[in-house]
């Protein structure tokens, strides 16, 4: 129980909540890196997944690449890019993007591929052009799956953004890295609790986004097209 009391004391320390090393500042950095990484990933992965899903071309290639990227050790990517580009935000973002692109890309591709052929047939048969079929049918029907991919990516990114501390740009990872260096278990635990908290908040955020972005006709487990 001592560790819990110490943890409570760590959080209760007023110094913990002010200045550049305080929780709000570290949390801000962490959220900023996570958001930036996720947005960059979405900007890359969603259009690419829409393209491969819509045209049916390059599907195998992207899925294979995505699976390859999943197997990459994130910390390895980080240090590789640090060697190439030096310390800073760039290597962190590169590592996060490499982590987040695969789930978003695969889910977007599968979401579009999964639209029932007869819906696509109806859309073309009524005189929609290719881009109209994509934007008015395939994208909205794929949104639930795309959001699931984004949520998976976001939780992983939030958990992994701790690596920013290794290259000196802060974030909640600082508590873990510094704690390790100083043999301060309480500090490491405090940092971990904050990261877990952020991951839970992220999941809740996506539950809200689902309500906001998924058409009511696709909710409540309705099967597409029935």
């Amino acid at each position, binding site marked *: 129980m001592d560790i819990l009391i110490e943890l409570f004391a760590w959080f209760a320390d007023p110094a913990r909540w002010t200045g550049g090393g305080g929780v709000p500042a570290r949390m801000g950095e962490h959220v900023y890196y996570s958001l930036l990484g996720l947005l960059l990933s979405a900007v890359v992965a969603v259009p690419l997944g829409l393209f491969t899903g819509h045209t049916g071309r390059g599907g195998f290639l992207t899925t294979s690449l995505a699976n390859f990227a999943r197997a990459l050790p994130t910390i390895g990517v980080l240090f590789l890019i640090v060697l190439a580009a030096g310390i800073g935000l760039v290597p962190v973002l590169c590592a996060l993007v490499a982590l987040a692109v695969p789930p978003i890309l695969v889910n977007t591709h599968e979401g579009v591929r999964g639209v*029932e052929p*007869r*819906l696509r*047939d*109806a*859309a*073309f*048969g*009524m*005189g*929609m*052009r290719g881009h*109209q079929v994509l934007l*008015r*049918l395939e994208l*909205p*029907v794929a949104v639930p799956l795309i959001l699931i991919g984004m949520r998976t990516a976001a939780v992983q990114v939030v958990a992994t953004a701790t690596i920013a501390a290794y290259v000196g740009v802060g974030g909640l990872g600082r508590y873990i890295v510094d704690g390790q260096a100083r043999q301060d278990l309480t500090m490491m635990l405090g940092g971990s609790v904050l990261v877990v908290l952020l991951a839970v908040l992220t999941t809740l955020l996506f539950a809200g986004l689902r309500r906001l972005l998924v*058409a*009511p*006709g*696709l909710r409540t487990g*309705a*099967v*597409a*097209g*029935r």
Partner: protein
Amino acid sequence: MITFEGAAKLYPDGTVAVDALDLTVETGQTTVFVGPSGSGKTTSLRMINRMVEPTGGAVLIDGQDVRLRDPAALRRSIGYVIQQAGLFPHRTVRDNIATVPLLLGWGRARARARAAELMELVGLEPSQARRYPHQLSGGQQQRVGVARALAADPPILLMDEPFSAVDPVVRASLQDELLRLQEELHKTVVFVTHDIDEAVRLGDRIAVFRPGGRLAQYDSPERLLAAPRDAFVESFVGYDRGVRRLSFFPARELSLREDVVFGDDTAAGAAAASMRGEPWALVVTGDHVPLGWAGAGQLARVPADTALGSLDLAPYGHTFAVDTDSLRAALDAAVLSPAGRAVGVDAAGRVVGVVSQEDLGTALWSVTE
């Protein structure tokens, strides 16, 4: 008018989907493409709106090769209804129906007003406008599918097995609805089905396709049933084609007997005396509503002054409408009646007369010969 001029579809693997089809679909009529699977009926239909491009020959609409038209523009001018409707799950009923008007650049308000009109036309409640497809039954979804196809008022309507996924009762009501719509709208309808009964029911003209994508016979439904061109068509239309053909002859040509119809206050003795050997008497109310059949033996057994209305009568079964029903309905009513006689009624349900199976047989012989 839609013309197929040697239209063919050959796939690279050597499969012949449609083999040099020559056929003319008349404007304002319902033409049904019917045949077993693999006979090229759907492929032929899809050549009309360029969902399939012919590899030989051409398809012309009012003399113009469809390949000269931009596919999207062409398709917006042709209604398209598919199996299980294919409604967009993320759009409300109203927005599904408004799809083509919106593609054509109508304003949202005008497109929605048009959608409301069409919902009424196909028999949907206004309250269903904001529902989503998954909240509707299969029959309702298909009505939305038809409304969606009609939204921009296209002169041509292509229907690809639209009613095959609903149960028989709903299918019959959708067929009735289509006949009613067609009477009102006079679209050029091309309808694909594998169900010959549906084809006979809906078609002004029927094209029977045989496996290998060849046209076996193109005729009116009546001619198709009367004179199938070969063994394939004969087996496809079925061996009860003779009875089904009776649907094309009106019942009003029958001569009905009124001398065996009696009011319920007639005395049994008087009725028996005027029946002249007929085995059954039909008893009706003062308003000529049928009550049931009295047998000649029954009349002989009861006291002569018994009123017919107080007898234990045999049920008269179902009636046929003399002015609107066909010989098939009259024959059906006679076969199902315990007396072997069919009761003909007018539009108000009043008895006009009765016809026996024997009289029906004579009539059938004379009209179908």
